[in-house]
C-alpha cells in the first residue's frame, strides 16, 4: 500500500492539477478511439461541462501527429497527439485521458503528450486517471476536479447513459457484422447502422438510452437476409486501438463484409469498460479475459502485458468453435503483439486454423492490403468448401 501511495504522489507531482480554470470556462476534450466519443459526450455533458469533439482521424490528423512526435513511437500515440492538438485549436482547455501502467508504452502516452504540448506552447489542464487499483475512486476524483458537480443524480445519469450508449452502439456493430454478408439488398445493413448511430448520439434521457438496445435488435431483424447462405466466419483480433479505430484499420470489417465474410470481433469497448470499471466480486459470468487465460494455457503460462493473452486465447477459442480463419492486426513495432505474432505461428499449425497477421503503419497502402485480404479469404473459402464436401460424403 505504501508503494501505491508513493506512486500516486509521484504521478500527482507530474500531472499537477490546474485549479485556476473556472468550471464554466472549462472545455473538455478526449482522444478518439472508435465510438468512445458517444459515451464521453453523454457523461461529460450531463455533468454540466462543455465538451469539444476532436475532428475524426484522417490523413491530415495523422500528418500533424507524425510531425510532432518522436520517430520510434507507435501509431496510436501519433493519432492521440493529433487529436489533442486539433481539439486545443478548437478551443479545448482540459484534456482527459485514462492510463494503465504496466501494459506497454500506452502507460507513457499522457506523460509524453503533456511534455510535447507544453513545449509547443499550449496552455491546458491535463487530467489523468489510472485504470488499476482504486480505479473507481480515481475516476470519480478526476471528474469531480473537472466538473465540481456534487449532484449524485447527475453522476448516475451520466454513467448510465454513457454505458447504455456504449452497449447500444456495440450491439448495432455486432448485428451489422452478422447482417452485411447475408443481406439481399446491398447497403441495407450499413444504412441501418448509420441511422442508429445518429439516433444514439441524439438520445439524452436515461429511459431512452436503456431502450436503445432492444429497438436496435428489432430494427436489424427487419432487414431481409438469406438465411441459408453459407458464410465463412473470420475472427478479428489484435491490438485494442487498431481494432476499434476505423481509420487506422482502413475499415477492415467493411472490406471483409463486402467479400461475403462474417466478421466477429472479440474486443468491444463496452465489454472492456464493464470489465474494468466493475469491482471483481460483482462479475456474474466468466469474463473475456478469464476465458482467454483458460484457453491460452497450453501456449502461455503468464500474462505479459498488452493484449497478448487475449489474442492467443481467442485464436484457440476460435479453432475449437469452428471459426474458419483469424486475422490479426497490429500497429508497427507494437511490443506485445510481436510476441503474439511469434506464438501465433505455432498456434495456427497445432490448432489447424489459418492466421494472417497484418502490420499497419502510417504508410500502409490500401491496395496491397486489399490484395492480401482477398487472397486470405479465398484460402478460407476453399477450405470451407472442402469441409462441406467431406461432410456431404
Amino acid at each position, binding site marked *: 500500500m505504501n508503494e501505491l501511495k508513493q506512486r500516486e504522489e509521484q504521478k500527482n507531482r507530474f500531472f499537477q492539477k490546474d485549479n485556476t480554470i473556472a468550471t464554466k470556462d472549462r472545455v473538455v476534450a478526449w482522444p478518439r478511439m472508435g465510438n468512445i466519443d458517444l459515451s464521453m459526450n453523454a457523461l461529460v455533458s450531463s455533468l454540466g461541462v462543455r465538451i469539444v469533439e476532436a475532428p475524426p482521424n484522417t490523413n491530415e490528423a495523422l500528418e500533424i501527429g507524425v510531425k510532432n512526435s*518522436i520517430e*520510434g513511437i507507435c501509431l496510436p500515440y501519433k493519432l492521440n497527439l493529433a487529436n489533442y492538438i486539433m481539439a486545443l485549436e478548437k478551443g479545448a482547455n482540459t484534456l482527459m485521458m485514462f492510463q494503465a501502467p504496466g501494459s506497454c508504452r500506452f502507460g507513457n502516452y499522457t506523460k509524453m503528450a503533456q511534455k510535447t504540448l507544453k513545449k509547443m506552447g499550449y496552455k491546458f489542464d491535463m487530467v489523468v486517471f489510472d485504470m488499476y487499483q482504486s480505479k473507481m475512486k480515481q475516476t470519480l476524483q478526476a471528474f469531480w476536479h473537472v466538473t465540481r458537480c456534487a449532484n449524485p443524480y447527475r453522476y448516475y445519469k451520466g454513467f448510465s447513459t454513457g454505458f447504455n450508449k456504449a452497449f447500444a452502439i456495440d450491439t448495432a456493430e455486432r448485428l451489422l457484422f452478422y447482417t452485411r454478408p447475408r443481406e439481399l439488398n446491398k447497403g441495407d445493413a450499413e444504412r441501418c447502422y448509420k441511422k442508429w448511430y445518429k439516433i444514439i448520439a441524439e438520445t439524452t434521457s436515461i429511459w431512452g438510452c436503456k431502450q436503445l438496445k432492444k429497438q436496435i435488435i428489432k430494427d436489424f431483424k427487419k432487414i431481409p437476409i438469406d438465411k441459408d447462405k453459407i458464410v465463412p466466419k473470420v475472427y478479428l483480433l489484435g491490438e485494442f486501438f487498431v481494432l476499434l479505430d476505423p481509420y487506422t484499420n482502413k475499415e477492415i470489417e467493411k472490406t471483409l463484409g463486402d467479400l461475403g465474410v462474417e466478421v466477429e470481433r472479440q474486443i468491444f469497448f463496452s465489454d472492456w469498460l464493464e470489465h474494468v470499471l466493475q469491482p471483481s466480486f460483482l462479475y456474474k459470468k466468466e469474463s473475456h479475459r478469464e476465458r482467454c487465460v483458460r484457453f491460452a494455457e497450453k501456449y502461455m*503460462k503468464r500474462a505479459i502485458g498488452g493484449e497478448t493473452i487475449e489474442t492467443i486465447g481467442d485464436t484457440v477459442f476460435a479453432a475449437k468453435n469452428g471459426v474458419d480463419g483469424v486475422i490479426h492486426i497490429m500497429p508497427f513495432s507494437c511490443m506485445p503483439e510481436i510476441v503474439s505474432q*511469434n506464438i501465433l505461428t505455432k498456434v495456427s499449425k497445432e490448432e489447424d486454423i489459418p492466421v494472417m497477421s497484418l502490420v499497419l503503419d502510417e504508410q500502409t497502402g490500401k491496395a496491397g492490403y486489399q490484395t492480401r485480404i482477398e487472397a486470405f479469404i479465398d484460402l478460407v473459402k476453399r477450405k470451407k468448401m472442402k469441409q462441406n464436401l467431406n461432410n456431404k460424403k
Partner: protein
Amino acid sequence: MKQNNNGVNVIGIPRAISYYNNYPFYFGFFKGLGLEVLISDRTTTKLINEGSNYVVSDTCLPIKVFVGHVINLLEKGCNTIFIPSLQSTAYKVNNCTKIRGLPEIIRNVINKPFKMIEPTLDKTNNISFKDFCYDTAHQLDIFDENKIEIAIQYGWSIYNNFQQMALAEIPFEEALKNAIENKIVSKPIEVVKPLSVVIMAHGYNLFDERISMNLIKKLEKMGVKAYTGLNVSKQNAINSIQELGEIQYWANELDLTGAAAYYMLNNKVDGIIALSAFGCGPDSLMVDEIQYHASEKGFPMIHLTIDEHTGEAGFVTRIEAFIDMLIRRKRKKLKNNNIKILPSSKKEQITKKEDKTVSFV
C-alpha cells in the same frame, strides 16, 4: 538433465538479455545449489542468423540474439536452460513485454525437447525476489530450504563483489571474470582522458561485442572515457530520475535514463551517446526523454540505432563525427577560459605524422 564428467548436473544460461545484469548472482546461486553453469558462446553473425530463422522479422535484435544463444546451448547438448521471466522489479515498474514473455516466446518458437527453468519475478503482484529463487530451486527438484538460503547468500556475495568493482569503473568483462573467481581487484591507475561521454544503453546491447561493435573500446582508442549504467549506483540513478522530474516506468530504465541523468546533472561528461536496437519500444521513449532534457541543458547527444545489418563503417563515421564535434566544443570552451590544452589523441596523431615525414626523408 545433462551431467558433466564428474556427474554434476549442468544448467545452461544464454549469454544474452539478463545475463549482462544478473549473471554474477545466477552463477553464485546455481553454484550454491550444487550445479555447474554452462554459458553459451559469444555472439557471432552466424548465431544471429540462426536465431532470426526462428522468429518473425519484426522482432528486435536482442531477442533474435537470445534465441540464437538458446539454440547454441541446445547444440552443445545442454537440455536444462534457465530462462527467467522478469515481469516487474518494483511496484508498477515493468519490463519490456518481450523480456517479460521470454519463456513464452522460446516455448512456442523452438520445437526441440528440453527443460526450461522459468521462474517469475513480479513485485507488482507480490512475487518477491526470494520467491523467484525458491521457484527456481523447486523447478530443479531441490527442496532443501537450508541449501537454498545458503545458495541465495552465496549469489548475493558474488553479485556484491561484482557491483563493487563495476562502481569502481572496472570494465565489465574484467569485473565479471574476477567476481566469478571470488576476487576483488582495485581500480588501476588511469591516464586522465581529455573527453568523457556517458553511453546510455541496455547492458545486453552495450557489453555484447558483436551487437555494439566494440563501442567502448573504439571510444577508448579515440581518447574518450566512456561511462555506463554499471558505474552508477541504483540509489543515485533513482534519485537522478526524480531530480529530472520524471517517473521511473521501465524496469531497466536505471541503466539508461538513470545513468544519463546522473552524469548530466553532475556535469561529469561532455556528451551523451544513446545506443538502441531498431524498433525497441522502451528505448524510443527513454531516449526522447533524455534528448528533451539534454537540449534544455545544452548537452550534445547522438542516437545510434543498430540492427543485424548495421555496417561497421557507417557506424564508426558517425561516432568519429560526434567526437570531433565534442573536441571542437571543448577547445572553444577552454579558449574562452584562457586555458591552452590540446587533446591527447590529437597530440599523438600530430607527433606520429612528424615521425613519418622524418623517416621518409
